[in-house]
């Protein structure tokens, strides 16, 4: 493959910016354009639900790179102008304002869009959290109302609950799972997280979904659960999940499913790549397609995509990593937690809120989770890399 002379990246956030940086680091001297729907320079999302919502960080502290570093990158930023159409064969993108951008290679990095409850726009006091603007609006409302209902028992919902509780609010979390984060961490560790939240004074209403929002005079007054019960609220946060931002790609000729479908090189079509939360690619190590929604993947996949754009022809086979910070708990996960995984505690003690758990499936270690045990977690990550036999791990398990 010949080196392209221009690259257009759609989506100017963690993944998109990282592609531009990796291209430059590898010596790419052609034209690079970053097109973004938001009007902000690239900023970081993980602090939003933590330090920005709590007020510990000013929004400017989330900027991924200082302006001086962005200037040195020699990248053209086109911000506040979402892409609305892609012609994959012509490698041309049309934007909402009517721009037409063409490049030899196009990288799709549009991330996720949040799911909302039907009719939620009708009521003031109802929020989602994906952008810095969302976060500032939610924070302003949290500073006025004492009762908060968080609809959603995933990572985002529980982080927001922890932050709101830390701000002294009365918080209730509603969600369909029997433990928070059960689908990400399994039932056992989800149970430890439930205990952490109830010990901190958060009310958990689990195993039930929000049916609808209730309101009066333009403002939300509560949520109605699937069993008819109404939980009163001054502020409602809707954190019921997100989906890949691919609506604008309908008719582009790309294959779309739960994300932009790519091969093991993260290539969706000739000269078109996808990266970050929006990319569904074939993971050769696992032998199946995956899509990851985490901060480290955004950068690591960007490095793989940049290398492939420059002709390296390298499959992307990461050991995924994500973390969440809730109250004083730093929870870190390397690898995968399949739904059928067995759990073995190999360090520490969950009752003391310091432990390392290994997850195993089909006879092998697939993941490691650490709870306030940073170094030990990093050491046990090697079991995931090596795919250590599960029988050997059982011998390491600390009796509970």
């Amino acid at each position, binding site marked *: 493959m010949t080196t392209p002379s221009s690259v257009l990246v759609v989506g100017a956030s963690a993944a998109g910016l*990282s592609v531009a*940086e*990796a291209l430059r*680091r590898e010596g790419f001297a052609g034209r690079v354009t970053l097109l973004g729907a938001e009007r902000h320079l690239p900023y*970081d999302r*993980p*602090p939003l639900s933590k330090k920005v919502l709590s007020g510990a*960080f000013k929004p400017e*502290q989330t900027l*991924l*790179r*200082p302006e001086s*570093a962005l200037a040195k990158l020699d990248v053209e930023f086109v911000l506040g102008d979402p892409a609305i159409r892609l012609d994959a064969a012509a490698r041309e993108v049309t934007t909402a304002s009517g721009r037409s951008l063409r490049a030899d290679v196009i990288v799709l990095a549009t991330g996720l869009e949040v799911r909302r409850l039907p009719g939620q726009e009708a009521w003031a006091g109802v929020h989602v959290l994906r952008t810095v603007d969302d976060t500032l609006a939610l924070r302003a409302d949290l500073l006025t109302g004492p009762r908060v209902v968080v609809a959603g028992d995933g990572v985002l919902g529980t982080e927001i609950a922890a932050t709101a509780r830390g701000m002294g609010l009365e918080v209730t979390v509603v969600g369909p799972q029997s433990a928070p984060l059960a689908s990400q961490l399994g039932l056992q560790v989800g149970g430890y997280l439930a205990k952490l939240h109830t010990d901190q004074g958060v009310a958990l209403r689990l195993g039930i979904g929000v049916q609808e929002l209730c309101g009066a005079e333009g403002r939300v007054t509560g949520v109605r659960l699937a069993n008819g019960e109404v939980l009163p609220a001054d502020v409602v946060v809707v954190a019921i999940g997100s989906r890949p931002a691919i609506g604008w790609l309908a008719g582009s000729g790309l294959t779309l499913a739960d994300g932009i479908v790519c091969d093991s090189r993260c290539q969706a079509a000739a000269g078109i790549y996808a990266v970050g939360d929006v990319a569904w690619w074939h993971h050769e190590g696992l032998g199946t397609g995956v899509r990851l929604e985490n*901060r*480290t993947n955004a*950068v*690591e996949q960007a*490095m793989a995509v940049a290398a492939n754009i420059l002709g390296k022809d390298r499959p992307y086979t990461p050991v995924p*990593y994500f*973390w969440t*910070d809730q109250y004083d708990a*730093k929870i*870190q996960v390397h690898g995968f937690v399949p739904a059928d995984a067995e759990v073995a505690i190999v360090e520490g003690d969950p009752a003391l809120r310091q432990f390392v758990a290994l997850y195993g499936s089909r006879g092998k270690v697939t993941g490691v989770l650490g709870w*306030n045990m*940073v*170094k030990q*977690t*990093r050491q046990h*990550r090697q079991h995931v890399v090596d795919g250590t036999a599960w029988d050997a791990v059982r011998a390491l398990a600390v009796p509970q």
Partner: protein
Amino acid sequence: MRVVVDLEKCCGAGQCVLLAPKVFDQRDDGIVILLDASPPKELHAAVREAATVCPGAAITLEEGQ
């Protein structure tokens, strides 16, 4: 090359330690410890990768002095 770390932004991921253990370590709470603010040339590539991968955008490099 000079390495600067922002302890407030560091989220304790430890990617830096995995990539460049001679330059970075972590405290018990995960926050980064800078072992060598002017690492030797043979470590520069690994340090650059750590600065890129760091999910807290907490590592900045001043290059070329």
